[in-house]
C-alpha cells in the first residue's frame, strides 16, 4: 500500500468513520484549510471557536487513527465580502499562528471575484508575509475560475516579497494550470465530484504538465465529496499504467515537499503515531 497525504480536507465536517477509512487506505496526514460553514459567521468570536476546533480537538481526533492533522487559518473567500468582519478576524489570527499544527494562512482567495474579496485576500497575504507563513489559495469555481485565478496570480506576481515556491494555488483546471505553474507556484488538483476535476482529468494534467509542483487532494467537506478521493485516484493511476514510484511522487513526496517548508510539518513513522 502506498501512503498518501491529503493536503486539502475539511475534516471538521467529516465523521470519525471517515478518518478510519482514510487510515485504512494509507492516509498518514491531512491538512485542513479554514472553510465556510455553509452560512456567513457573524462575529470574530465564532472564528476564534473554529480556530480552537482546528488546532485542539481535530488533531486529537485524527491522531487516534495514526493520521497527523495540520491546519491553515483565515476568513474564507466566501466571507471575504464583509471587510469589517475580515479586519476583526485578521486581528485574532496571529494569536493562533504559533500553535503546533498551524502551517500557514489558507484557504484564502476569491469566490465571486469582487473588489472586497480581493482586498480581503491581499490583507491575508500581508499577514502571511508578516509572520513568514506558507500560503494556501482557493480559486473560484465554474465560470469565475479563469478570471479569479488570473486576478490572484497577477496580484501575487506583482508583489516582490512573495516567494512563489511557498504558495500553493488550489483547484486548478485545464484552463488555469499553466498560468499557475509558469509563475512558479505549486498547483493543486481537487478531486471533487461534479464541480471540480475527475480522477481521469487530474491524471491527464499530470501526464501533460509533469508531476513537478503538482498535488492532488480530496477537498472533502460538508458537500457531496469523497474523503477517499485520493486512493480512488491512485487506483485510476495504476489502471492508466503508471508506476508505484510515479504515484508515490504525486500523493506523498510532492505534498510533503511543499508542506515541509514549514518547520512544523514533520511526518512521523506511522507506527510511532499509532503508539502515541
Amino acid at each position, binding site marked *: 500500500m502506498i501512503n498518501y497525504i491529503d493536503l486539502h480536507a475539511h475534516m471538521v465536517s467529516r465523521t470519525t468513520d471517515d478518518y478510519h477509512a482514510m487510515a485504512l487506505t494509507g492516509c498518514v496526514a491531512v491538512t485542513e484549510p479554514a472553510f*465556510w460553514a455553509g452560512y456567513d459567521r457573524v462575529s470574530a468570536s465564532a472564528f476564534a471557536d473554529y480556530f480552537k476546533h482546528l488546532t485542539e480537538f481535530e488533531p486529537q481526533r485524527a491522531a487516534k487513527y495514526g493520521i497527523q492533522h495540520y491546519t491553515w487559518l483565515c476568513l474564507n473567500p*466566501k466571507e471575504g*465580502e464583509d471587510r469589517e468582519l475580515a479586519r476583526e478576524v485578521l486581528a485574532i489570527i496571529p494569536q493562533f499562528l504559533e500553535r503546533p499544527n498551524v502551517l500557514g494562512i489558507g484557504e484564502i482567495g476569491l*469566490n*465571486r*471575484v*469582487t*473588489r*472586497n*474579496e*480581493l482586498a480581503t485576500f491581499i490583507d491575508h497575504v500581508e499577514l502571511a508575509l508578516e509572520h513568514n507563513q506558507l500560503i494556501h489559495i482557493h480559486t*473560484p*469555481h*465554474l*465560470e*469565475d*475560475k*479563469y*478570471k479569479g485565478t*488570473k*486576478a490572484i496570480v497577477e496580484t501575487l506576481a506583482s508583489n516582490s516579497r512573495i516567494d512563489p515556491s511557498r504558495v500553493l494555488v488550489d483547484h486548478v*483546471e*485545464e*484552463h488555469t494550470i*499553466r498560468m499557475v505553474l509558469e509563475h512558479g507556484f505549486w498547483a493543486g488538483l481537487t478531486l471533487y465530484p461534479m464541480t471540480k476535476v475527475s480522477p*481521469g*482529468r487530474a491524471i*491527464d494534467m499530470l*501526464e*501533460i*504538465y*509533469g508531476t513537478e509542483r503538482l498535488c492532488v487532494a480530496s477537498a472533502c467537506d460538508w458537500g457531496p465529496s469523497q474523503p477517499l478521493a485520493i486512493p480512488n485516484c491512485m487506483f485510476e493511476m495504476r*489502471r*492508466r*499504467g*503508471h508506476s508505484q514510484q510515479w504515484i508515490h511522487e504525486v500523493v506523498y513526496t510532492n505534498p510533503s515537499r511543499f508542506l515541509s517548508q514549514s518547520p512544523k510539518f514533520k511526518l512521523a513513522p506511522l507506527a510511532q503515531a499509532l503508539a502515541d
Partner: protein
Amino acid sequence: MQIEGSCPKTQRELIELEFIEHRTKILDIAAFLDRFDRSIEHNANDDFRIKAFREALAALNSSEFGRVERIQMLLSDLSSELRAERDGQSAYGAAKESEQ
C-alpha cells in the same frame, strides 16, 4: 508541457478501458437535450447556460488537441473586471452575457 505520447496507454487499450463509460456519458447528454425539447414549457432556449452548452458541444467536434481547455474557456467569464459587490455565493457554470 508534453502532449504527444504522454498517455501511457495505446489507443486500443483506451477503447477497451473507457469506451463504454464515455458512450454512456454521450447518451446522457443527448437525452438531456431531448428532454429539454420535450419540456412542458419552452421558456429558456436562449438561457446563457444552454447557449454556452451548445457552443461547447460544437467545440467537442474539433479534431484538434486542446478540446477541454477550449471548452473550459467557452464556459468561463472572460471579462477581467472585478464585481462591484457579491451577488450570491455560487457561480452558475457559464458567464451571463452582460459579463462577457
